[in-house]
């Protein structure tokens, strides 16, 4: 099995990058993908970006995270 998750690149420095997803950040190797830039979505496995994600697919995943986040934020706001 291969556990992999979609995340967004926030920094690119040569063959190293930093990705963010769902409030978590991770250092990744960029050796396995072509030209990428901050803002691109990638699939991350074992510390490497293994593929650039098409915009639609990324949006679908992001939407799930955002929905959860929005629900929690609403809940927090109600009781703070």
């Amino acid at each position, binding site marked *: *099995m291969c556990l992999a998750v979609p995340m967004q690149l926030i920094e690119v420095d040569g063959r190293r990058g930093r990705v963010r997803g769902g409030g978590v950040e991770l250092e990744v*190797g960029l050796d396995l*993908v072509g030209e990428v830039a901050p803002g691109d979505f990638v699939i991350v496995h*074992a*510390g490497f970006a*293994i593929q650039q994600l*098409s915009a639609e*697919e*990324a949006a679908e995943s992001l939407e799930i995270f955002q929905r959860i986040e929005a629900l929690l934020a609403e809940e927090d706001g109600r009781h703070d």
Partner: protein
Amino acid sequence: MTEIDRLVARLRRYQGPVLTFMEVCGTHTMAIARQGLKQLLPDTIRLVSGPGCPVCVTPVGYVDHALALAAREEVLLTTFGDLMRVPGSRPGSAPAPSLQQASAQGARVQVVYSPLNALQLAREHPESEVVFLGVGFETTTPTIAAAVLQAEAEGLANFSVLSAHKTIPEAMVLLSGAEDLGLAGYLCPGHVSVILGTGPYEPLAAVHGMACAVGGFEAAEVLRALVALVDQVEQGTPRVDNLYPGAVRPEGNPRARALVERVFEPADAAWRGIGVIPHSGLAFRKKYAAFDAALRFPVSLPAPVEPKGCRCGEVLRGVLDPVACPLFGRVCTPENPVGACMVSSEGSCAARYHYTLEA
């Protein structure tokens, strides 16, 4: 009606003879078990787990080799967490030894998330030999090849890999012909296909008559792939459908494959419970022999002993339901695993044990 309801309704409309589909990806095994997806399927559609858990198909002799390396003073062993609990085969010792026990006895064993973490440890511990346990399928192999190339570029001489890498299409071809299984098709692995693309499955459809669908891991993604498989069977046109198109491109990731090809070459490989499958493994090319832990630290080990009564082999081939194994849940449990399928949390037996209602 939600999309899931519609997909389930479509599957339940299938009225023909029983269809058996196999998934060959541990993450699919887990996703299906965690979401209870089999409960949504009609009796006419069976979903079985194949050899998709890399730890499970790794021969017990490899674990013995890893344990022998862990026992060497200069070695700092690095591994994915998946391997820590897998028992080796040293006969007569109870419980069977594992890396977790070796670590408890003082061996240096470090769980890492990425081969890059192992590389970092090699930089920080120049006095140690950092050995990474290279276990995995096509998704993982490129990350290890990249780490090896990085080590070469940096001249890191104290980094090496004990390779047990495997490639999945050869096993799928082998099992497609197994009469006792009677497979109608494959739920093709999601992340392996990110690297491979859909091409390697074409012969399965064209030559072996297998329906093939690449699927993601959310409930809807798995169900979409199953609907595609049933469609193919009903239409009598086995082909390869890509139901995970955002992540899986037809050509896969050629750059990742090229890195793997630079470092490794195809080799015959032993699959636990299945036997040797020609060209289903990866061995270091001569040029990178210096990074091959098997060459750097040769060990002579007694022939590995498969645990008595363990039927992991049949479970891995999908012909035996885990609960039908006489050891399941009685002698063989996640904390005292006998066979590999119970060890890794994505193994068919462990997934069954953790997620299924008591019989």
